[in-house]
C-alpha cells in the first residue's frame, strides 16, 4: 500500500513539475503596446521609466515632480527653462523684457504676447482668455488647489488685452516672475462647463484623463500601476520626431535598473547615486546629471527648543569643521557629487567667493573648547552640567539614514554625540499646526534637501524673521527660527531687484551671512541623475524642465 501511494505522490510531483516547465516555457514575447496604424512604418516610441506614479495630472491638484515633468509633453506654459536654465518661449512669442516693452517702467506690469498658431489638441486656438480662466480657477475658493503661488501674495491681476495679449500686474516689482507665472494653462472650453456643472474642478475627469492639452504630445491613456501613454499632437505648431512617449511605472529602483540593463527603457529617471557605476559600465546609455536646485543640507535650530550649544555660533562652526562631507560624497555618493558651498550652489547666484567649510577636526576641537564645551571622562563634551548630545533628525530616505550613522561615528572622537531620529516624511514635514517635528523646532540639526521655491529663480523666504512660525503665524516657513534683520533686508531687496547682475551681488552678501552665521551647512548637491539610451539623440535634459525640448528628440 505504501509503495502504491508513494507512486501517486510522485505522480503529483511530476505533474507539478511539468506544469512548472510548461509555465516557464512561455517566456515574455515583447510586442509593441499598441497596434501600429495602417501606415507602412510602425510608430516610433520612446519609453521612460518612473519610479513613482503621479498622483494626478492636473497641475492644479499636484505639484509632484513626477507629474510636473510630464507637462512639457502635453501642457506647456508661457515658456520653459532649457538645459542652461535660460527661458525658452513656448506659448509666449518672446520673453518679456524692458527692451521689448514687455516689462513696464515701474516693473509691476508684464505684458506677454501669445503665439497665434498655438492650438489645443482638439484644434481650438489657445487665447489669453484661457490664461485668465486659469488664474480664476487657481484663485477660486471652490477649488482646493495645491498651490496659489505667486498669485495670492504678489499678483494684483491678470487681464486679456485682445485674444493674444496677456497682462499680468503685480503689487510691487517681483523678481521671480519669470519662473513662477503660468507654468501651465488650462483649456477654458473644456473646464468651464465642468466648473459650471459641478461648482468645482476638484473631481473633474480632466485631472486624470486630460485628453485635451497643448504641447507636442497629447495624453492618450493611463493605467494605474502600469503606464501612461502620450501620442503625437497633430495640432501642435512643431511636429515632434517621435510618435509616442510611453511612461512605464516601475515600483522601485531595482526594477528600474533592471529595465535599463535589459534595454526596456530609453530614459531612466531619478537614478540612485549607488547605481551609477553599474549603469555607466553598460555602454548602452549615457548617464546625465542635472542640477535640480536641490541641495542636501543641515538646518540648525535657532529656536528656544534647541540645545544651548547649537545656538552658539562657534559650536555650529565646529560641527561644520568636524563633518567630513567629502567622505559622504566620495564613498556613499561614489564621487558623483560635491558638498555645496551655499543653498544656491551650481546656479548663477552662487558666489565664487564662498567656499565649502573645510574638514578640519583639530579646528573643530579647538572651537568647542573655546566655546566651553570640554571633554568629560566619559568621552562626551560637557558645559554647565549639560552634555553635548544633539538631536539629529531626518526622514526615511536611505542615503540620509546611512549619513546619520556615519556622522555619529565621525564625531565620536570629537566628543560630540548625536541622538539619531528619523520620521516618515508625512510626520517630518508636518505643519506647525499639526505639531510637525521640524515646524515646531523639536530638533537640533535637521537634514533634508531643499530647493528655492520657484527654481531656477533663487528667491526664498525660508530665513526671514516674519516667516518664523508662531501660533499667530502657523504658516511660517522659517523652520530654523533664525532672525537677522540684516538678512531680511537683503532678501527683501533681491526680491524686487529685476536686474540680474545686481541681484547676484545681493546674493553674495546673503550667502556670506548664511555661512558666517552657519545657518545652513551643505552636505551634498542633490542632482537628478538620468540615463539616456544611446539610440536617442538631442535629449538635452534641464534641471528645471527636464523634457523642455521633447519635440526635438530623435531616435536612431
Amino acid at each position, binding site marked *: 500500500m505504501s509503495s502504491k501511494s508513494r507512486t501517486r505522490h510522485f505522480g503529483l510531483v511530476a505533474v507539478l513539475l511539468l506544469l512548472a516547465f510548461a509555465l516557464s516555457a512561455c517566456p515574455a514575447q515583447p510586442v509593441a503596446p499598441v497596434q501600429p496604424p495602417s501606415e507602412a512604418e510602425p510608430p516610433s516610441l520612446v519609453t521612460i521609466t518612473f519610479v513613482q506614479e503621479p498622483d494626478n495630472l492636473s497641475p492644479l491638484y499636484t505639484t509632484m515632480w513626477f507629474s510636473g515633468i510630464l507637462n512639457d509633453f502635453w501642457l506647456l506654459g508661457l515658456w520653459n527653462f532649457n538645459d542652461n536654465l535660460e527661458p525658452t518661449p513656448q506659448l509666449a512669442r518672446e520673453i518679456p523684457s524692458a527692451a521689448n516693452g514687455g516689462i513696464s517702467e515701474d516693473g509691476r506690469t508684464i505684458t506677454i504676447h501669445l503665439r497665434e498658431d498655438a492650438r489645443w489638441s482638439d484644434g481650438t486656438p489657445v487665447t489669453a482668455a484661457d490664461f485668465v480662466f486659469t488664474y480664476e480657477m487657481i484663485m477660486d475658493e471652490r477649488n482646493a488647489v495645491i498651490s496659489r503661488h505667486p498669485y495670492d501674495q504678489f499678483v494684483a491681476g491678470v487681464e486679456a488685452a485682445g485674444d493674444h495679449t496677456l497682462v499680468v500686474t503685480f503689487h510691487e516689482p517681483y523678481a521671480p516672475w519669470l519662473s513662477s507665472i503660468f507654468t501651465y494653462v488650462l483649456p477654458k472650453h473644456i473646464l468651464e462647463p465642468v466648473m459650471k456643472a459641478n461648482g468645482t474642478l476638484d473631481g473633474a475627469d480632466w485631472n486624470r484623463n486630460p485628453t485635451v492639452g497643448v504641447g507636442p504630445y497629447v495624453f492618450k491613456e493611463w493605467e494605474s500601476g502600469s503606464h501612461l501613454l502620450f501620442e503625437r499632437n497633430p495640432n501642435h505648431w512643431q511636429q515632434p520626431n517621435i510618435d509616442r512617449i510611453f511612461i512605464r511605472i516601475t515600483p522601485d529602483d*531595482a526594477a528600474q535598473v533592471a529595465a535599463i540593463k535589459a534595454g526596456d527603457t530609453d530614459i531612466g529617471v531619478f537614478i540612485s547615486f549607488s547605481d551609477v557605476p553599474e549603469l555607466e559600465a553598460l555602454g548602452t546609455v549615457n548617464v546625465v546629471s542635472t542640477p535640480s536646485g536641490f541641495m542636501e543640507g543641515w538646518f540648525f535650530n535657532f529656536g528656544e527648543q534647541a540645545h544651548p550649544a547649537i545656538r552658539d555660533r562657534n559650536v555650529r562652526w565646529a560641527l561644520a569643521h568636524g563633518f567630513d562631507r567629502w*567622505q559622504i560624497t566620495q*564613498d*556613499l555618493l561614489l564621487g558623483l557629487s560635491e558638498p555645496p558651498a551655499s543653498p544656491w550652489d551650481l546656479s548663477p547666484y552662487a558666489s565664487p567667493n564662498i567656499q565649502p567649510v573645510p574638514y578640519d577636526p583639530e579646528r573643530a576641537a579647538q572651537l568647542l573648547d573655546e566655546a566651553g564645551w570640554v571633554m568629560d571622562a566619559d568621552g562626551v563634551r560637557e558645559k554647565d552640567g549639560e552634555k553635548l548630545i544633539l538631536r539629529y533628525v531626518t526622514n526615511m530616505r536611505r542615503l540620509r539614514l546611512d549619513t546619520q*550613522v556615519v556622522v555619529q561615528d565621525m564625531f565620536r572622537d570629537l566628543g560630540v554625540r548625536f*541622538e539619531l531620529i*528619523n*520620521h*516618515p516624511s508625512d*510626520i517630518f514635514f508636518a505643519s506647525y499646526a499639526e505639531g510637525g517635528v521640524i515646524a515646531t523646532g523639536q530638533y537640533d540639526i535637521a537634514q533634508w534637501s531643499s530647493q528655492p521655491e520657484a527654481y531656477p529663480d533663487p528667491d526664498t523666504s525660508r530665513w526671514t524673521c516674519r516667516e518664523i512660525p508662531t501660533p499667530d503665524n502657523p504658516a511660517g516657513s522659517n523652520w530654523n527660527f533664525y532672525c537677522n534683520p540684516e538678512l531680511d533686508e537683503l532678501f527683501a531687496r533681491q526680491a524686487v531687484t529685476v536686474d540680474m547682475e545686481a541681484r547676484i551681488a545681493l546674493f553674495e552678501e546673503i550667502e556670506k551671512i548664511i555661512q558666517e552665521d552657519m545657518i545652513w551647512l551643505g552636505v551634498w548637491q542633490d542632482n537628478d541623475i538620468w540615463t539616456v539610451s544611446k539610440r536617442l539623440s538631442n535629449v538635452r535634459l534641464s534641471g528645471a524642465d527636464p523634457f523642455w525640448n521633447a519635440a526635438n528628440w530623435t531616435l536612431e
Partner: protein
Amino acid sequence: MSSMAGPARRSAVSTTTEFGDVQTKGGALSPWRLAWRRFVRHRMAMVGAIILLLLILYVVVGALIFSEAYANQTATFKRLQGPSWEHPFGTDPVGRDVLARTIYGGHISLSIGISAMLVSVVVGVLIGAIAGYYGGAIDSILMRFTEAVFNIPSLFLLIVMAKFFSGRIPTVELFGRSFSGSVIVIIVVIGLTSWMYLARIVRANYLSLKEREFVLAARCLGVPNRRIILFHILPNTLAPIIVTATLGVAAAILSEAYVSFLGLGVQPPTASWGNMLDGSYVYLESAPWLWFFPGLLIVLTVLSINFVGDGLRDALDPRSLTK
C-alpha cells in the same frame, strides 16, 4: 457569540488543588513534574531548546568578543564587501560588520520578542480575567472590544499603530547602552496588537473556574475579588498562558521583523534582525549577505521557539496523553 466562548478547556492542574496552591507534596504525581517529564521526552521540543540555547549563546558570547562600538563602527571605504575572514558575514552599505550587527541585533530582537510577549500577556490576562470573573456588562463590553481589535488584520493594525507612535519616545539609556526610542514603541505596539487570543482563553478558563468549589469557598471566607483573581484562579490557568506566551515570543519576533522590514520599526543606529533587512532587498542581487544572515537567524529563532512551544503544549495539555 457562540463561536467565541468555545469549550472551557480544563487545565492540567486545575483538578488537583484548592486555593490555588500548586505545590503538591509527595513529588511523583505533581502535574508540573509530569509535564516536565513529557516535555523532555518530546524530541522536537528538545531540539528546539538546544537551538534556542545555541542562539542565546551566540548573542551572549558574541557580545563578549565584539564590542557594541565595533558593531556600530562605520567604514565607508569598505562598504558592501562580501563575506571574508575579516568580516565573515560581509559589510553593509556604510561598511559596518554584519556579523557583529547580527549579535547586537539579536539582543534587540530577542528582547523585543520577550518584552512584547510580556505586554501582551499582562493585557490579555487582565482583560480576560476581569471579563471572565465579573461577567455581565463588563464582560460583554470587554469582549466586544476584544473582538473588534481581533477583527482588524494584525499587520494593518501594527503598521497603523507603529506610525501612530513613531518618533514619540526619545532615545533611552539602559544598562549603559542607549536604545532608539523606537524599540519601546515596537514593544508596546506589538504587545497591544497580540493580546486578544490570550484574553479569550483566559476568559473562558475564568468563566468555568469561578464556579468551582475552591473559589466559592474563598469568596465565603471574604477574600477580596482581586486576590481571588490573582492568587486563586490565575495559578490554575497557567498552563495555556505559558503555551500561548511561548509561541507569542516567536510571533512577536516575526512581527518586529515585518514592521522593521517596512521601515516603521526599530530605527538606526540600533540594529535589529528586522531592520537589518529593511532596504536590503535593493541589494537582492549585488549583496545577498545583507539579507541572508539576519533572515536566517530569524528563521532559526522562530523555529526553535515554535518547537519548544509545541512541546510545552503537548506536555501541559492532558489531552495529549491520549495520543
